[in-house]
């Protein structure tokens, strides 16, 4: 566990818009790495991000980012970059100016600001069109220029609200690679996205939201273990599927053992995965079967989302 000065800490945070609930009693602490905010429309993801960056203030509770609050804007916004979902830009601005002038407000001199601008444009793949007016950009380009602005000052915390929206598959892959490399550099990267498969692939942990509440939070596998209503699914590719299935059925916690159509594997549904793995070890050690692969089949974001929120993981 990191110290609170290296974490993003929400303590009992609530936000009400009049009588309308934004988020309620949110408490968590996030370490560095990639955290995904997942939930259906209106679940409070953007509210949570706006609270984190001080665009709105909590009705109750407190938020600290690396030990800082938005009451210390100079220190705070040197550490935080936020790529919002608002698809609007100052009228008449060019891509270059859109990044350069905020950097000047950070206190960077003209030369340093120009260098950082070029670097951010390069990283976002926007260097070629930087001198054009943003009004003439496509949706994907606007998304990328916002992303470039949010990373230009080398923040320690990067907050990205639906950063993959409007990006074509190549740009999306590049953006994901960028997020991964930033996380490897030790950044806190917080992403909200409705593309669950891609979020799942890169996330170190998830915060699952529904109707303004945090339904679950933590590393994906840990969250999956906590969902006890739905037995874990484990896929075992092995030589003697029938033998494994019958052995598994002898365990009380195994609720289903389904032999795959090709006969070379079993899909186990169990309420106690640890016990099943012990059984599997014993069978393999006894030489009764040969195992080619063992993999959890439903400890991904999509499954967790489905179990906890009840949708099929479509747009969220």
């Amino acid at each position, binding site marked *: 566990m990191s110290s609170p000065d290296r974490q993003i800490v929400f303590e009992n945070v609530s936000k009400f*818009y009049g009588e309308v609930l934004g988020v309620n009693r949110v408490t968590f602490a996030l370490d560095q790495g990639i955290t995904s905010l997942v939930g259906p429309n209106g679940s409070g993801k953007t509210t949570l991000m*706006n609270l984190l*960056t*001080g*665009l*709105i*203030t909590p009705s109750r509770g407190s938020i600290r980012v690396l030990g800082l609050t938005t009451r210390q*804007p*100079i*220190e*705070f*916004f*040197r550490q*935080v970059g*936020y790529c*919002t979902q*608002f698809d*609007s*830009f*100052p*009228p*008449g601005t060019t891509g270059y100016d859109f990044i350069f*002038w*905020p950097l*000047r*407000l*950070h*206190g960077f001199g003209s030369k340093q600001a120009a260098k950082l601008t070029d670097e951010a444009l390069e990283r976002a793949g926007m260097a070629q069109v930087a001198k054009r007016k943003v009004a003439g950009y496509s949706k994907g380009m606007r998304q990328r220029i916002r992303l470039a602005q949010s990373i230009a000052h080398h923040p320690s915390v990067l907050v990205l609200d639906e950063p993959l929206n409007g990006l074509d598959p190549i740009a999306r892959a590049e953006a994901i690679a960028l997020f991964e490399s930033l996380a490897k550099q030790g950044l806190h990267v917080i992403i909200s996205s409705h593309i669950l498969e891609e979020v799942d692939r890169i996330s170190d942990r998830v915060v699952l939201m529904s109707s303004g509440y945090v339904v679950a939070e933590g590393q994906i596998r840990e969250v999956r273990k906590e969902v006890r209503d739905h037995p874990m699914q484990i896929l075992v590719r092995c030589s003697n599927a029938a033998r494994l299935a019958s052995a598994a059925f002898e365990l009380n916690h195994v609720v289903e053992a389904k032999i795959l159509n090709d006969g070379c594997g079993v899909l186990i549904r169990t309420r106690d995965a640890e016990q099943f793995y012990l059984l599997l070890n014993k069978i393999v050690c006894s030489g009764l079967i040969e195992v080619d692969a063992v993999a959890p089949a439903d400890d991904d974001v999509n499954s967790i989302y489905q179990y906890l929120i009840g949708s099929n993981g479509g747009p969220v």
Partner: protein
Amino acid sequence: MSADDVIMRARKWMQEQPWELYGTQVSVLVRNEVRRNLFTRRRLWVYLLVVIPVLILLAHNLFGHDTTDAYYIETETRVLAGIVQLYYVRLGIFFACMGIFTWLFRGEMVERTLHYQFLVPVRREVLVIGKFLAGTLIAIFLFETAVLACFYLTYSRFGAAGRAYVFDGPGLHQLSAYALVTALACIGYGSVFLALSLLFKNTIVPGIVLMGWETIAPIFPTWAQRLSVTSYLRHLCPISLPVEGPMAIFTVVTEPVSPVVAVVGLLCFSVAVIVLSCFLIDRIEITYTVE
């Protein structure tokens, strides 16, 4: 806490502030705001407010050849005083400042771009000051140019007599007084409208109330008159205009105050309103959907 403690804390706070950074930020903000707001199609009605008297005087110069006699200088001086003191100060600058200063924050809310200003390492107080200075520069530039143009057009057609009135007579003094009144009106109304834009989503109704207050303030006690921009400016106007008829509603009669007190008073009033704006900006949240 003793007075010494307060002074020591204040001194420590002053020393801890990154004044150089604040200076850079204000200059960047002013530059960007002026570039965005000085010449824009959205300001066409403001330019019209500014330029109407100039166009009328220009037409008068081009077609009114019968009044170029030096005999008319006094009359034209009173016309110019009416233009500056009644039209510009009471109406033109009032409504232009309403348009310029309320748009500085409220406009960014409408255009959904204010969050960019809130996501940079700039104190919101610095943001208020930067935007106020930018608005003031824009308003002063537009109206000082217009007043200068009106002044030139008024006296240029009298030839040598006009030059004599300006350089050897009271002309330059009047011009400097008009310049001062114009600048102070921009500062005073600007600060008030900036604060109103942070208090209200729609500033038209508060603007009308303010106009009414500026009109009736003279009937209130002296302390209440100090809350009116026009009551300060009245003492700085070089020509006394006894207005009759419907325009009388725009004249004010206040207790006599020395020009220095009027200038310092208006500046203090504006600083107080800007300080209030610095508190108000902290309440602003980015909730574009309700704008």
